């Protein structure tokens, strides 16, 4: 048992005790009004902690006397001194703005979340107990109220409102007290005697999960509608009991709650750490994720995002490839310059940046473009975690202040965790007047209503909430009067009416007349918001039919955003009629948000519409494409019968046929699969390529699910003999997967015939293996001999593993002993995949010698499988003569490496290593690269150097959340490892090194085990010591230093480049250089990536040179994606020597390029004349008045 902490704890715990705020507060407190409140509590807490310490030391030391405090050395690292002057000096602020310290310790410590009350006081929660309570330690976390009484922009008064909380991560004053999250609970605390301290506690909701204390319920925020919103993160499982019934949310999501009625609903699902949620002035919601890199996410009711439990498809955010973000605030108010209002602020807390995004709506979609940073710091403890507009119109940033931000990856008791400091920073626009906050208490009802058009959204929210405390009859009368008094000619008329509708909603008074008026508004944003109100008032306003009729019309609105909202609102009355009304939206253009709304709605309503899918009642079911879409959305066995009928009886396009067969294959039973198989095999009039594709789709599904179609498949024999090659291969595979004995002899002769092409022999070998039997085994044995071609030998050895693994292992070792045998990766993979395979290989390696290169590849394949196979790795290394694998760094060695990185590492050189090792295959920087490993964009801002060193050398030691592999064994004895993406009702979805989405049917799974990291160990073994130091140095600077930060520009980062091959060069010489614009089999494009700044270094692009050419050329391509057609603005550098084509058409390069693109993907190619091109290649999207749509470059890998 590794428990370094308790021996080290002498120091660790003690540090934490003496650093507790109240102790220092007593001494240092100068500005705080009531110092003694904290003092007595602190002494109590200290007493408890000393007692804890005594126990822990006495109990723990027995078993731990010999343990080494492994992390003690890590304190050698430079954690900068907490000094607010120096921190101020470390800021770079946006031009025209300045920053000042509003509050800091001892007033507050480690602030996590904050909200203003209507008296202009800031309520702040923080936690010293986080991350994990000590045995016997009291729950002693606090709510502090701080105030700037003299208006100088600096807090001068603070008081402790509550001090017995348990990791409070969200706070929202309201309803005569304050709502605060308290681990499993949401409490409402009140001060009933006016002494400034909470004296009444009501548990409002309880049952929130605490599986991870940085995931617990958080981000409380009052909505524009008077509802309270709060979020939870990925590991949390919550079961809340309300008078309306129990409510459950597993994994992340956003809750919506009306305290006075106790109505609690899930507003949206998913996210890893949705630490930010706000809405614009039209009531549309946006969210950010503190552990996922998609920037701003547009959220509508029922939308689901990454990690949403049991939902097979999720929505993407608006800024794929950005760093992770915490908190979200939509800016408003007169203090800020006009062009800042409506933009959104969130925090890159890893990279010490406060970021700003311009989000604009375009035909129902949103486009989000990052702007220059609001604030940036070089101080590693600056951790902006919350941002709120203040009542004075300034921007306030909560700085959690901590050098350590990892939760699981760094020891809970790591002494570098800060438990005592914290700051609130205030950002103001230079030379612009501040806002005078209203005194809500003193305002009349009319005065409050006047604030509903205040430029400050904050004032609008508080005014509406204040109305709830006033006389109801007077309020309603005043609302009617205000409505009558609006000036239709005013430019704000539509928004003003909407605010009044929301005011009615906030005070919970239905107003059908106003609602109907706004549903017919000329402004689509108002209609959209009104639909949401309609759905919330549904049961009180309409009978079901009237409601559906109303929404059926709205689902055909001229604006897609209204359609999205209406489609989602239809589920309030679950019925076939609702489904039909929703599908009508498909008669108009469908963008990705609307499509998602439709997909999820058809799933929500499947029980109602599916029974009618084959009848005449549903209009959409008469249209093959729409019915296919809806049936596919269900993604389950209940839809298959209708899918089979659709596939057999209706004319479908080639693409639709494949979709139908794939969907049947995914969930069909044997009989249904048999019907589909017959249809494919008998459809002689269908083009052979299409038949081959259909057959492949079906066979692939049968293989995955270990099911055999029930039906006549004997015509396979005919296809295997006489069909064109592509269909032949598909039929050979089918014969194996379906164990079709009637063709065994044909397969045997194919497999053994040396004159047959390997492309046919290999599948025949695999199919024979699947069919099994002595004769098959004898044939496979004979094919492993060295006179056979290498690929046949590999195929035969692989095929032997399931039935004769020892023999297969023996042949494999013989094969691996030969040099130049080609890539052995598929061999290793096959041994890993089959039960007992890797053990057999390990045994066969005993005493054998294999080629060192084969040994290295083997180690890489085995270690990156996520499985723990130390014996196999040791055997491989020994057989390859590589010596023993290192297992651990001593603390002293680690410290030495860390120091060496600091003093001798060079990040620029390190970037070369990053490319050489092809890190981008699994890791992304700014959206470019793979997603099998954690994003690296701002890794330097979050990870300490020791962590980086150990993570590279020993990838399994600490694994980022969401990157744990899962090792799955299926009933047919195959093993898969990958990272769990999701699990639906009947499938487990993994991403693996080779497949972005591997779907494993749950009923085929025998066992699941947690695996380790998928990162190969010794990936860096080929690096020299200096190269390793450089690589770590680079990682430590990514996202932290200006040279290695991705910045806010939208560059092409993922490229395809043409490698320098003779075949390509010859082809381009013969057909001229411009032939590269079209695809051709000799042009084998490969992946390429820009550097951290988004620039493609020319030296990294292959140059192709033919002896008859006077210059050499480079060829690159990238892809633009857009939700709608229009013009985008591109800047291309350098101009000289470059030529650009978009979808095959040449584009003139001059100044900013306005490019016409269609909706969807636009393929762009560049030809570079290397003798003329000077400088590195940089293509980016830029802002330009001529641009009508926003697009993005395709990232990924």
């Amino acid at each position, binding site marked *: *048992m*590794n*428990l*370094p*902490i*308790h021996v080290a704890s002498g120091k660790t715990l003690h540090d934490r005790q003496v650093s507790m705020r109240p102790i220092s507060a007593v001494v240092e407190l100068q500005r705080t009004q009531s110092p003694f409140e904290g003092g007595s509590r602190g002494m109590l807490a200290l007493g408890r902690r000393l007692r*804890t310490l005594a*126990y*822990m030391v006495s*109990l*723990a030391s027995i*078993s731990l006397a010999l343990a080494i405090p492994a992390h003690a050395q890590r304190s050698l690292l430079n954690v900068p001194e907490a000094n607010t002057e120096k921190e101020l000096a470390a800021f770079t602020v946006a031009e025209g703005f300045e920053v000042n310290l509003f509050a800091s310790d001892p007033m507050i410590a480690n602030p996590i979340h904050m909200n203003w009350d209507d008296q202009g006081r800031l309520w702040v929660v923080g936690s010293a107990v986080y*991350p*994990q*309570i*000590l*045995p*016997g330690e009291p*729950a002693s976390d606090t709510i502090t109220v701080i105030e700037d009484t003299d208006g100088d922009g600096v807090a001068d008064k603070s008081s402790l409102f509550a001090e017995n909380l348990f*990791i409070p991560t969200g706070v929202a004053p309201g309803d005569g007290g304050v709502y605060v999250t308290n*681990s*499993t609970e949401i409490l409402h605390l009140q001060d009933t005697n006016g002494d400034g301290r909470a004296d009444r506690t*009501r*548990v409002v909701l*309880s*049952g929130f*999960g*605490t*599986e*991870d*204390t940085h995931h*617990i319920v958080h981000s409380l925020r009052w909505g524009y509608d008077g509802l309270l919103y709060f979020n939870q993160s990925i*590991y949390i*499982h*919550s*079961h*809340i*009991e*309300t*008078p*309306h*019934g*129990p409510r*459950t949310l597993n994994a992340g999501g956003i809750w919506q709650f009306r305290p*006075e*009625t*106790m109505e609690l609903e899930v507003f949206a699902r998913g996210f890893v750490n949705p630490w930010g949620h706000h809405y614009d002035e039209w009531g549309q919601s946006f969210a950010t994720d503190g552990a996922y890199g998609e920037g701003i996410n547009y959220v509508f009711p029922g939308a689901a995002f990454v990690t949403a439990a049991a939902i097979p498809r999720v929505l993407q955010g608006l800024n794929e490839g950005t760093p992770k973000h915490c908190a979200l605030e939509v800016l408003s108010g007169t203090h800020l310059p006009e062009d800042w209002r409506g933009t959104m602020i969130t925090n890159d807390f890893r990279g010490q940046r406060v970021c700003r995004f311009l989000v604009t709506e375009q035909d129902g979609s949103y486009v989000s473009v990052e702007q220059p940073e609001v604030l940036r710091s070089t101080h590693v403890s600056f951790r902006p975690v919350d941002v709120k507009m203040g009542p004075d119109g300034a921007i306030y940033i909560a700085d959690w202040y901590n050098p350590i931000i990892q*939760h*699981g*990856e760094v*020891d*809970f*008791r790591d002494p570098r965790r800060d438990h005592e400091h914290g700051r609130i920073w205030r950002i103001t626009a230079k030379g612009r007047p501040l806002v005078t906050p209203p005194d809500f208490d003193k305002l009349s009802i009319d005065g409050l209503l006047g604030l509903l058009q205040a430029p400050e959204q904050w004032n609008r929210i508080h005014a509406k909430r204040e109305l709830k405390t006033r006389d109801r009859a007077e309020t309603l009368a005043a609302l009617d009067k205000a409505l009558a008094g609006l000036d239709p000619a005013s430019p704000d008329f539509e928004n003003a009416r909407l605010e009044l509708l929301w005011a009615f909603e906030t005070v919970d008074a239905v107003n059908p007349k106003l609602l109907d008026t706004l549903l017919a508004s000329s402004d689509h944003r108002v209609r959209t918001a009104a639909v949401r109100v309609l759905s919330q008032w549904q049961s009180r306003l309409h009978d079901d039919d009237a409601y559906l009729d109303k929404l059926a019309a709205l689902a055909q609105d001229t604006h897609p955003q209204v359609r999205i909202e209406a489609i989602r609102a239809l589920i309030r009355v679950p019925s076939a009629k609702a489904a039909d009304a929703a599908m009508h939206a498909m008669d108009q253009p469908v963008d990705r948000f609307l499509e998602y709304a439709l997909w999820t709605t058809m799933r929500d309503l499947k029980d109602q519409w599916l029974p009618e899918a084959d009848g005449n009642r549903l209009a959409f079911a008469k249209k093959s494409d729409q019915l296919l879409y809806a049936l596919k959305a269900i993604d389950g066995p209940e839809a298959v019968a209708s899918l089979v009928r659709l596939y057999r009886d209706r004319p479908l396009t080639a693409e639709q046929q494949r979709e139908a067969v794939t969907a049947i294959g995914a969930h069909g039973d044997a009989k249904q699969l048999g019907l589909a198989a017959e249809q494919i095999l008998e459809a002689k009039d269908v083009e052979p390529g299409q038949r081959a594709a259909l057959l492949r789709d079906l066979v692939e599904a049968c293989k995955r699910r270990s099911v055999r179609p029930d039906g006549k498949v004997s015509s396979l024999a005919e296809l295997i003999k006489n069909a064109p090659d592509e269909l032949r291969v598909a039929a050979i595979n089918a014969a194996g997967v379906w164990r079709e004995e009637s063709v065994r002899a044909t397969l045997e002769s194919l497999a053994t015939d040396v004159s047959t092409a390997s492309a046919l022999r290999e599948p025949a070998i695999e199919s024979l293996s699947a069919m099994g039997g002595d004769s098959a085994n004898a044939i496979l044995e004979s094919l492993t001999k060295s006179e056979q071609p290498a690929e046949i030998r590999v195929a035969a050895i692989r095929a032997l593993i399931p039935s004769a693994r020892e023999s297969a292992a023996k042949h494999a070792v013989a094969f691996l002993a030969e040099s130049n045998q080609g890539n052995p990766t598929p061999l290793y993979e096959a041994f890993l995949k089959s039960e007992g395979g890797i053990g057999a290989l390990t045994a066969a390696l005993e005493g054998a010698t294999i080629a060192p290169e084969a040994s290295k590849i083997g180690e890489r394949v085995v270690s990156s499988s996520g499985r723990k196979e130390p014996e196999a790795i040791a055997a491989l290394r020994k057989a390859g003569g590589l010596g023993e694998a290192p297992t651990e760094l001593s603390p002293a060695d680690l410290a030495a490496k860390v120091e060496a990185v600091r003093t001798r590492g060079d990040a620029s050189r390190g970037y070369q290593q990053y490319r050489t090792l092809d890190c981008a295959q699994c890791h992304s920087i700014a959206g470019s690269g793979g997603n099998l490993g954690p994003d690296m964009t701002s890794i330097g801002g979050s990870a300490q150097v020791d962590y980086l060193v150990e993570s590279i050398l020993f990838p*399994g030691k*600490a*694994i980022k*959340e969401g990157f*744990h592999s899962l090792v799955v064994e299926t009933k047919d004895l195959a093993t898969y490892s990958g990272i769990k993406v999701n699990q639906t009702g009947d499938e487990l979805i993994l991403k693996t090194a080779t497949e972005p989405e591997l779907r494993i049917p749950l009923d085929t799974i025998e066992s699941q085990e*947690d695996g*380790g990291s998928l990162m190969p160990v010794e990936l860096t073994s080929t690096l020299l010591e200096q190269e390793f130091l450089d690589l770590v140095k680079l990682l430590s600077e990514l996202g932290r230093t200006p040279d290695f930060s991705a910045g806010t520009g939208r560059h092409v980062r993922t490229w395809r480049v043409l490698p320098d091959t003779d075949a390509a060069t010859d082809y381009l010489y013969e057909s001229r250089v411009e032939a590269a614009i079209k695809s051709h089999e000799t042009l084998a494009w490969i992946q390429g990536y820009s550097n951290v700044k988004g620039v493609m270094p020319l030296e990294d692009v292959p140059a192709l040179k033919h002896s008859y050419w006077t210059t050499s050329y480079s060829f690159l391509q990238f892809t633009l994606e857009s939700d709608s057609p229009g013009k985008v603005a591109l800047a291309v550098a350098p101009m000289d020597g470059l030529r650009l084509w978009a979808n095959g058409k040449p584009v003139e390069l001059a100044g900013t390029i306005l490019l016409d693109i269609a909706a969807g993907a636009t393929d762009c190619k560049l030809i570079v004349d290397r003798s003329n091109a000077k400088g590195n290649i940089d293509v980016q999207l830029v802002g330009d008045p001529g641009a009508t749509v926003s697009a993005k470059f395709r990232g990924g890998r």
Partner: protein
Amino acid sequence: MNLNTRTRGRRRFIRAIAMLLLTIACAAPARADSIALSPGDRVVMLGATFVEREVRYGCIEAMLCAYFQESGITFRNLAWSGDTVFGDARAGFDTAKEGYERLLKHVDDADPTIMLVSYGQNESFKGKDGLEEFEAGMNRLLDDLAKNNARIVLVSPALHENLGPPLPDPAEHNEDVRRYTKAIGAIAEKRDLYFVDMTALLPVTKEIARSPRTDDGMHFTESGYWDVAAALLKGLGHDAPPPDLERLAPLRAAIVEKNRLFFNVWRAQNDTYIYGFRKYEQGGHAAEIPLFLPFIADQEKQIAALRGELHGEKGLNAQ
């Protein structure tokens, strides 16, 4: 890990003696007229939010401690918000089946001699259609709990109060609560288990409640829990005058603190890292969890001392 090994042996011994005495004393009918707590009793409370919130208030435990004067009676609250007889709220990352197994393990670890089992509130929201499933689930649970050889008391859910708009009118839902309560009563009857009918002990009217025990119609307030505690005592077959709550305050505070400490043991936060699939990162801290036990033992001593003080004054209810 069994967190109770230190006291388990001693309690088993006391219980064995008690059982022996009981056997000698009378050939008791299978179903008692009342339920009394005796030295060595470990009371385990099982259920959902209705029971779980008692952790925060300690009223039931304080009331029972005040009434049953013998020493050596301890309490463990193993309720879980949103839970059902199927254990689904305890599933966490796993399946409902594993959640159910966890429920049984929780009980096993607490080594009860008597169990107060209160389910049905969450299930009742499924109405008539869910009743059969609930009965089957309850019977399965009781079959599985039987192996603990503890006396089992079934406690019905409580009715919802009508607090007036905008909170929902509970009249319709209360029909379902009654329906499920009736089913629980029938199961108790069939199994010869003691049954406490909270719907009868804490009656509600259709009118708006004038002095409500709940703050939202469903969840009891602190003072509401005193009523629940008194009702439970009565339901267990004991008529007692209302206790002096002020005098119970120190005892109750000690109970609440014990509950808090115990909550941090069996519902430890960060359990993903301590016991779950990320334990290779922070699993070492699992060793901290048993370090709570001495604090709990201390707290139990303090509770015992406070009880002694109360009963030293001739018992709370004897005045």
